[in-house]
């Protein structure tokens, strides 16, 4: 590299075409900026679309359908037998991913976003070098840059990935056969989803974690997850000695968390210093006047929908609009047995923060829809401020929780109260009624559970 190498001007340069980066690119382009989007993998959509959210939910849905069909056999449904044809299944999964990648690609094209394939690193405060293949490099002098390089699976200290027997979670969605024995290591939603999916598909699964499952969720949801995993046939083991769990010769998937992809960016050459392996941004997602960061590289939950909202806000600001990332609740969803979803404060967090809450808990056993679907073990647990009654947290376990949480997030954003929820008509018979019912419980006047107000 020589000073004075030829460089291209880039009005807006976005590093990473994941859910944060591509959304920021589209929004900034809509607002008239000229956008160059750099992606090292050669495929837009990032980890989420190509190897994370979309493939994992595809597998989860396939496994859940099998489990539902098996349950219905008791009610006279023709029974399924044997293991699924995973090779055929993988074709349909790859097809779904392909459709979505193509969709994003064509949106970027239509918006006039220039997509460059290569690995980016900073070589100055306003200059980025992109290595394209082995030999070719391009330099970009940017006016504004957005760091959206995402995160990678962390390696487990005692069980490093070997690419064959011990693999990172994303590999588990590509298997062309159902492993006979599977050891899943980890306590997070990723580990839980894989364990439940493969148990439903026919593997003998051991899920080994050092702590309670879903440790950062409400205790009640952790308990529901643990019970549900057992129901799905997962052998849940809480142990710190990983060598002693699981049958020898089992395939092993390890989910040890994620770390921001910052090491290869040479941030110090741009005068940027991450702290704690993260970038810290303000409400405008800026680190510096012309440097933005969004998604998993920023301090916060490494979730695609958070990155996408940040991408929209960053794109708005790049387009000259007044905007801020000030979301009050980021939903978290788990496609396990049962589906689990949460938004806002947990009971423990409310307690730790000295926030006085009224809790409304409604068991699905009292809900018509849940009886129809023979899924009566879940619940809706809502936390309302004792003072004023606004919804502060929602913790759902049961079918369609991952969809129902949207109403709860909206309610938190709107500052809705228990009365608001209780007085809103929810269609019958649906799982959504559980939210209205939980609000009623918190107000001490439940209809469908005993212990309502007495005269």
């Amino acid at each position: 590299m020589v000073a004075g190498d030829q460089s291209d001007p880039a009005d807006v340069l976005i590093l990473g075409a994941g859910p944060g980066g591509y959304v920021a690119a589209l929004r900034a382009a809509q607002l008239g900026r000229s956008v160059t989007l750099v992606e090292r993998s050669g495929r837009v959509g990032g980890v989420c679309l190509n190897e994370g959210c979309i493939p994992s939910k595809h597998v989860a849905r396939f496994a859940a359908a099998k489990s539902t069909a098996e349950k219905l056999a008791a009610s006279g449904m023709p029974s399924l037998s044997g293991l699924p044809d995973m090779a055929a299944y993988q074709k349909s999964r790859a097809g779904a991913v392909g459709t979505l990648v193509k969709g994003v690609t064509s949106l970027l094209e239509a918006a006039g976003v220039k997509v460059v394939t290569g690995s980016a690193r900073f070589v100055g405060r306003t200059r980025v070098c992109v290595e394209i293949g082995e030999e070719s490099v391009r330099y970009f002098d940017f006016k504004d840059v957005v760091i959206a390089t995402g995160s990678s699976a962390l390696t487990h200290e005692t069980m490093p990935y070997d690419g064959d027997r011990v693999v990172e979670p994303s590999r588990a969605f590509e298997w062309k056969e159902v492993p006979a024995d599977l050891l899943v290591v980890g306590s997070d939603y990723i580990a839980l989803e894989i364990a439940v999916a493969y148990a439903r598909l026919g593997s003998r699964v051991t899920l080994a974690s050092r702590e309670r499952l879903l440790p950062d969720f409400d205790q009640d949801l952790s308990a529901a997850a643990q019970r549900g995993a057992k129901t799905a046939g997962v052998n849940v083991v809480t142990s710190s000695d990983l060598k002693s769990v699981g049958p020898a010769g089992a395939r092993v998937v390890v989910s040890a968390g994620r770390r921001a992809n910052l090491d290869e960016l040479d941030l110090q050459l741009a005068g940027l210093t991450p702290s704690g392996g993260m970038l810290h941004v303000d409400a405008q997602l800026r680190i510096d006047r012309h440097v933005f960061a969004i998604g998993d590289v920023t301090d916060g939950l490494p979730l695609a929908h958070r990155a996408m909202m940040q991408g929209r806000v960053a794109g708005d600001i790049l387009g000259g609009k007044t905007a801020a990332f000030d979301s009050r609740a980021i939903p978290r969803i788990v496609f396990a047995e049962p589906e689990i979803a949460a938004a806002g404060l947990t009971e423990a967090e409310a307690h730790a923060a000295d926030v006085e809450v009224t809790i409304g808990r409604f068991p699905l056993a009292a809900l018509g829809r849940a009886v129809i679907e023979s899924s009566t073990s879940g619940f809706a647990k809502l936390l309302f401020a004792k003072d004023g009654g606004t919804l502060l947290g929602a913790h759902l376990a049961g079918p369609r929780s991952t969809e129902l949480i949207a109403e709860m997030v909206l309610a938190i954003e709107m500052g809705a109260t228990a009365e608001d929820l209780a007085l809103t008509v929810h269609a019958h018979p649906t799982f959504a009624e559980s939210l209205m019912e939980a609000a009623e419980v918190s107000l001490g006047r439940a209809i469908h559970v005993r212990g309502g107000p007495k005269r």
Partner: protein
Amino acid sequence: MARFEFRLPDIGEGLAEAEVARWLVATGDRVTEDQPVVEMMTDKATVELPSPGAGVVVEQRVAEGDVVKTGAVLYVIETDAQIAAGGGSTHAEEPSRSAPATASVSENAGVLAPPAVRKLARELGVDLAAVKGTGPGGRISAEDVKGHTAAAPAAPATAAGGRRVRLRGVQKRMAETMTLSARTIPHVTGFHELDAGAFADLVTRLRRDAESKGARFPFDTLLVRAAAIALRRHPIFNSSLDDERGEIVMHEDVNVGVATATPDGLIVPVVKHADTLDLNALAAAVDRVTLAAREGKVSVSDVQGGTFTISNTGAWRGGLGTSLIRPPEAAIVAFGRIEEKAVVRDGNVVARPVMPMSVTFDHRMIDGEQGLSFALTLRSLIEKPEQLGA
């Protein structure tokens, strides 16, 4: 627990010093990580410096109004956890970019307002914490936000729905300086039309010469030269009024500021000792400071010490108007765009390149006759540019 001396980091753009604008916390106050502790002001911007960690500020080593150098200890904090050397200090070879200012993700976290209302408030520059919500439980509606804007006494004439932008940095500085100027200085402005034919030709020739040697020759060079010569002949224009002591300070140095439009706003970098520099050195100095200003790279010393200002609105194809004097200076001269105009010469109407000029002076120090005399000197220098020694 650890004691940590927080030093003034390089706050960027080559500034070696900054003024302590405001303490945001008192000695003994507890602060969280990244909480702004002190506000520093440079001639270019105001920056809030966040705490490197959670802890208690045990000592403030500088006072508001102090001008401190990069690396000087601003305060001492007893932190809850060890802070790595380099956090907030100047050890890194490449200075770290300043951390973002205060706005945090949880702004307005306790306020009852839905997302669309929060957006509206942001766009109108309304602090939701100050808005009284009329909805149930104090919920804030869009109408409440709009009503608050209309009721705000600070902006009686602002139409609802406009965007509000906080005054800061260069713009804030401009607002302060110009308010002081308009409030304290009795301005008098005289207008003149100069025949700029020879002047324009000379500039063109000098520029071509310079460019053939790979150098640059800014148009303003000869205007600065003309001003410097005129200031030497009329020292009262190169002075300041010390109001408190009832004295006029006649400056030794002739330091000419050149009003420069930058993306951040108006900056006036100063060409020091403009009367002593030879033409090449003067051209280089004008080029350096104005370019630095436009690129946002001027140092504090580049914008300090001015004794007089020129403003060449012609450079932006501007016409001519009055100017405001930059206190504590005594005068300012503005030049408009050179345009062909019909003028009468020897009884005939001819087309001549005409440059408009306005001379604005502080009538507390300078009277009308002195003002006219200075203007005529400038006029003579520009109309007969051979006097400029170029």
